[in-house]
């Protein structure tokens, strides 16, 4: 399923996630005459989830119109960068209180002929900072 940030689909097709590790938050201390270290383990920090997929335009009559539509769609999603909201992953898992820290095009916009017109496509990448 398409990953969703708040009410916004981050991709249209071929969505995939790479789920990062929760950040370890630990205080470490060394004593002069004692071998090793002491750890004070604290609650885990956030994890980063990298999302990639394909964003597509509506079917348009020309390549220029399709690319313009896709750029508008991309820019609309980028307005969520810096926003804290719920993130639903490709498996439907919900990560509450997540930050969309980046959303970018990952390659040139390509144009493909489809039935009844032309569609623009681009690989996209998003970075989510989620609670552990």
């Amino acid at each position: 399923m398409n990953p969703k940030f708040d009410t916004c689909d981050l991709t249209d097709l071929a969505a995939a996630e790479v789920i990062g590790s929760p950040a370890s938050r630990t205080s470490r201390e060394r004593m002069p005459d004692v071998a090793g270290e002491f750890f004070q383990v604290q609650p885990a920090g956030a994890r980063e989830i990298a999302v990639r997929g394909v964003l597509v335009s509506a079917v348009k009559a020309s390549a220029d119109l399709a690319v313009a539509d896709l750029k508008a769609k991309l820019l609309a999603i980028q307005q969520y960068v810096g926003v804290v909201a719920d993130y639903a992953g490709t498996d439907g898992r919900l990560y509450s209180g997540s930050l969309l820290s980046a959303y970018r095009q990952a390659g040139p916009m390509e144009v493909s002929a489809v039935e009844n017109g032309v569609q623009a496509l681009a690989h996209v990448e998003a970075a989510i900072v989620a609670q552990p």
Partner: protein
Amino acid sequence: MAFNIYHDPANVTIGQTPIAGVESIVVSVRRQEFCAHGDGEMHESVARFTAGRTSGTITLVDPAGAAALAGRTGTLSFTWKDTKAQADKTVTIAGASIGGYDATVARNAASGVTLPFIAESAPVVADSQ
């Protein structure tokens, strides 16, 4: 279903310069692939062709003439003759560039040379006038 067969490429020119002694012309059009798959997909769910690339080779018999053509640019044009004497075709490829040549001159054999080309447009095939 009706079909046509063509032979004998003729009237070969690039940028108004005639190319003599042409034996054959290969025209290739290849579109780039845009493919992707997502989590849990056993097969690519995105498989599209996008921008095309036109390329090919012109094979002729005259290495000296080919040397003079290397580096030429312009519209590449030639005709295909219909083997059934019906509608001959004119092929026009705008924005073509000849990138060099491979010449073969051998003992007791006719010389041969191939000229590779690429182009900034798709070939247009139309009935000859």
